[in-house]
């Protein structure tokens, strides 16, 4: 009833007050459990508040007034209001536990994605060396995520699917979902305009949040990190794209780790820099972040923590990507995760080209 009145407050909402879009097989059950509890709570709360207000007004007396009742206990009443709520609680408990067990048992034959969380990005490994920061799945087909972390605890949270699971270093945590709503694909014109805008106004940084769709033109669901993990915790977000068909998904897979036609190495390197988590620790304008800035880096010589000297050449860049802890520049911490197995040779080459290009002309 307040929806239309309040709706400007929460922006583009078209699915009720309490929930984001309902896009997985779990969402219906979670929402209806939530609503059940909500109504039970209202059923308790309204009488309590009415009684509270009514007593406060009705029995209000000036100072010195005497209470009109001396009843100090009533065992029947007290036992009944202790026991009765317990039955209601049992209903909630049973329903919640069934729903929980559903979420814990992945069906056999689910598509599998290996998820790696690190500060502060995600990398989804689809097998066959195809790795992407985005989570892609096929509608109405269960997907199982096997998750691990290389540094601190993260938590994978997709509100639209109502799923959440911590990603704990040192162990594998598993979660699954079956999306029921597919992403839409925006028109090519709209996509081109957004790409152009990103290129012109944002230095090529395509932020899906800004346009409402991904670089490939899919609308998406938000995927958040829900466990506090440090500086860019709030930016540790990515997108979930749900494909209409298996073919569409495979087409995306095929293109995912390949340099697009007509893109130069530098451009592709820049895109990887933006999408694969480099930019959260390495600036390209000389600002010192967690790691050394890439600006003017190539060809320079640095002292290492070990006391040796190293010249930044192709070999050093490649080694630093694949085995970051081998040579740490003095003054920095050994915190970068290895990208071994996550970047193809072509991608590494493109990154090298990109870093080279930052030296200016």
């Amino acid at each position, binding site marked *: 009833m307040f929806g239309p009145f309040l709706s400007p407050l929460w922006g583009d909402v078209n699915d009720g007050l309490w929930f984001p879009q309902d896009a997985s097989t779990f969402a219906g059950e979670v929402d209806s459990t939530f609503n059940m509890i909500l109504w039970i709570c209202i059923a308790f709360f309204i009488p309590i508040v009415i009684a509270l207000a009514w007593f406060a007004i009705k029995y209000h007396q000036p100072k010195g007034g005497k209470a009109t009742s001396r009843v100090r206990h009533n065992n029947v009443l007290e036992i009944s209001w202790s026991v009765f709520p317990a039955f209601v609680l049992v209903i909630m408990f049973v329903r919640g536990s069934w729903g929980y067990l559903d979420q814990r048992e992945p069906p056999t034959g689910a598509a599998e994605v290996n998820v790696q969380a690190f500060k502060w990005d995600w990398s989804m490994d689809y097998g066959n*060396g195809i790795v992407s920061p985005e989570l892609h799945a096929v509608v109405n087909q269960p997907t199982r995520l096997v998750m691990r972390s290389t540094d601190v605890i993260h938590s994978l949270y997709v509100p639209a699917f109502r799923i959440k699971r911590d990603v704990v270093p040192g162990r*594998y945590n598993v979660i699954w979902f079956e999306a029921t709503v597919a992403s839409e694909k925006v028109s090519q014109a709209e996509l081109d305009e957004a790409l152009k805008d990103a290129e012109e106004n944002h230095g090529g940084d395509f932020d899906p949040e800004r346009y409402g769709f991904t670089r490939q033109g899919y609308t998406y669901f938000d995927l958040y990190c829900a466990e506090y993990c440090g500086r860019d915790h709030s930016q540790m977000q990515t997108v979930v794209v749900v494909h209409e068909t298996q073919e569409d998904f495979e087409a995306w897979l095929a293109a995912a780790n390949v340099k697009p036609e007509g893109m130069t190495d530098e451009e592709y390197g820049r895109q990887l820099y933006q999408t694969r988590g480099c930019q959260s620790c390495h600036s390209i304008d000389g600002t010192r972040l967690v790691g050394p800035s890439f600006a003017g880096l190539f060809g320079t010589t640095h002292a290492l923590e070990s006391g040796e000297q190293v010249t930044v050449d192709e070999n050093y860049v490649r080694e630093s990507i694949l085995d970051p802890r081998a040579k740490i520049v003095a003054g920095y911490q050994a915190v970068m995760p290895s990208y071994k197995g996550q970047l193809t040779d072509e991608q590494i080459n493109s990154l090298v080209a990109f870093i080279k290009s930052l030296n200016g002309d």
Partner: protein
Amino acid sequence: MATTEALPHDATAEDHDHGDHPAFLAHHFDTPEQQFDSGKLGIWLFLVTEVMMFSGLFCAYAIYRAMRPEVFVGSSVFLNTQLGAVNTGVLLFSSLTMAWAVRCAQLEQHRMLVGMLGATLGCASLFLGVKSIEYSHKMDLGLLPAGFYSYDPHAVHHHEGLSPFLIWMAAPFAIATIGLLVWYVIAKVRKNAFQSLVAGPLLAAGLSFFAGVGLGMLLESGESTEGVEHVSESAEESLAEIGPLVGEEEGIHRQDPVEPTGVEPIDAADAENEPAVARATGVVGQLAQQETNSGVRQQLLAEERQAEMASGRITTSAEDVTGPVGELVQAIDTPRLGGVFFSIYYCITGLHAFHILVGMGFLTWLIVRAARREFESNYFGPVDYVGLYWHIVDLIWIYVFPLLYLIR
């Protein structure tokens, strides 16, 4: 008295002079009994907090023992049971002297009380002396908490002279003992009965630390004539016995998606490359089986390396992995595994030793008060409370000893 109607509005309440009750009774208490009961309840509650605190450590012990039984079995052979047993006996005896001291306080046997407190203090000191030998010996071997663990079974561990760790641990006691000796001599010379009554037991306690050191050295060297080899052999034996366990246990607590079948016997020659490839299932796995498909193989190996990094299971030197037994010794020897046992060992025994030190402080305070003859038959609370504290410290050791030293 309850019949009085006077309401407590008498704002000018007289300050309590101590005329109507004994000096030891604090003025917010009405009777010595009330004061004693309060103190007793207070100390019992405090002991509850102590138990809760140690129970946290025992939980950590239980959890990690359940997760890595082989590490605990393999590592506990490094603990010297004889030294532990000696210390257990010393603490049990000190509990006896402590209880006796309480009795003396009740019976107002003042000199005997000082003696018993001194004996307890001496036992505590002896305990720490033995403990310092245990610690310094392990530190010399590099048996340290996970972060510093550097034990190398192949190195020769023959240390000439005193361990620097021992010197650091013994130095404060040496200084204190010398100080006490000087004090004692001066007190004797000046014929100050009170001071010599206090300094005597303290000096004895200081000396008993070094008695403990000597005893510890004796027992420790007795062990090491048979050699460190003995220790590491038994470590290897016990590891070999539980060898199969390890594989299972690894498989259980790491639900590694890439290796659902658990650890297979590893071909020594190809130990480095085979596992991930062999274990990979599905299409990728089939692809990886072909020697020519080096890209996929590399991919899988890299993934495995990553998984290992994620789980922190990086072996420091991969080259001397020769087979199941070798690998297991390796697993124990690497800091990331073997250290856990010693982390828990140092935490539990360290916290316990800290409690002994605090108890020694209390005992010293009691000795001074006992020498002043402050305790009497209806005021012996402090002795009783410290006694209770001492018994709990003893009791905790009674649990620590079997858990760390005996259970294999």
